[in-house]
């Protein structure tokens, strides 16, 4: 039973990551791309938790750090989105072309 849970969680983690990648590709709104990145992070966290049952609690410590970095990333990223919105009045990544070659 335990083995089944961990294996199923590994597959689900892979699925969440793949959905997050598709979300980053399909969305143009920067905030929704960010939410897709959160999905990817959750897929990775789920994978680590599934493996932590046999590989030890270091994996859970890693998930803890991932969550802290995700919080920092979300706050700074959303601040950047607000700054971009002030400048362009949009959050559409196709229309923010200042660095486009």
């Amino acid at each position: 039973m335990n083995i089944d849970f961990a294996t199923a969680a590994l597959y689900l983690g892979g699925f969440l990551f793949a959905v997050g990648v598709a979300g980053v590709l399909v969305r143009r709104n920067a905030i929704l791309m960010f939410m897709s990145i959160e999905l990817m992070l959750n897929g990775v966290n789920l994978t680590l938790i599934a493996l932590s049952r046999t590989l030890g609690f270091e994996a859970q410590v890693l998930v803890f750090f991932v969550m802290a970095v995700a919080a920092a990333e979300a706050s700074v990223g959303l601040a950047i989105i607000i700054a971009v919105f002030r400048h362009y009045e949009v959050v559409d990544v196709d229309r923010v072309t200042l660095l486009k070659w």
Partner: protein
Amino acid sequence: MITEFFFLLFAIMAAAGAVMVVASKNPVASLMFLVLTLFAVAGLFVLLEAHFLAAVQVIVYAGAIMVLFLFVIMLLNLGHDRSDLRSMAGRVTAVVAGAALFAGLATILGRGAVTEMAGGMGAETVRAVLESRGAMGAVADPLFRSYMVPFEITSLLLLVAVVGAIVLARRKAP
């Protein structure tokens, strides 16, 4: 039996919520589906015996980060139904890319090396640590012994993030 039922329930909630995050037109609806996904993943954490991280997941992710997203969506007045999904070709490309990535990951898992690791010999040791130290102690032990310095650096990272967010989002002084 009941744990299998809840595992299946949370897994379906997480997968369906994730798909709806990507497919939903309204940003607020997307965010609510993301909260659903995060709660379901927290439930899976409990079933995988990571109780402390399930609590952190609900408090930090579903609580703090999602409120931050909601504030920004409402601050920028984005709660309308105008779709920001790409054109049909872009959607097909994204779905194909996601499906290919999942197929690749599933193939790697299907070969058995990783899943064997997940069902490997360490399970009894981990269970014993969990029994003797409890859910908090089992995580706190490596966190405050082996990973003390990274833990302290995390606090520095969060401080930098707070200052950086304020500096970036602040209106320029006239």
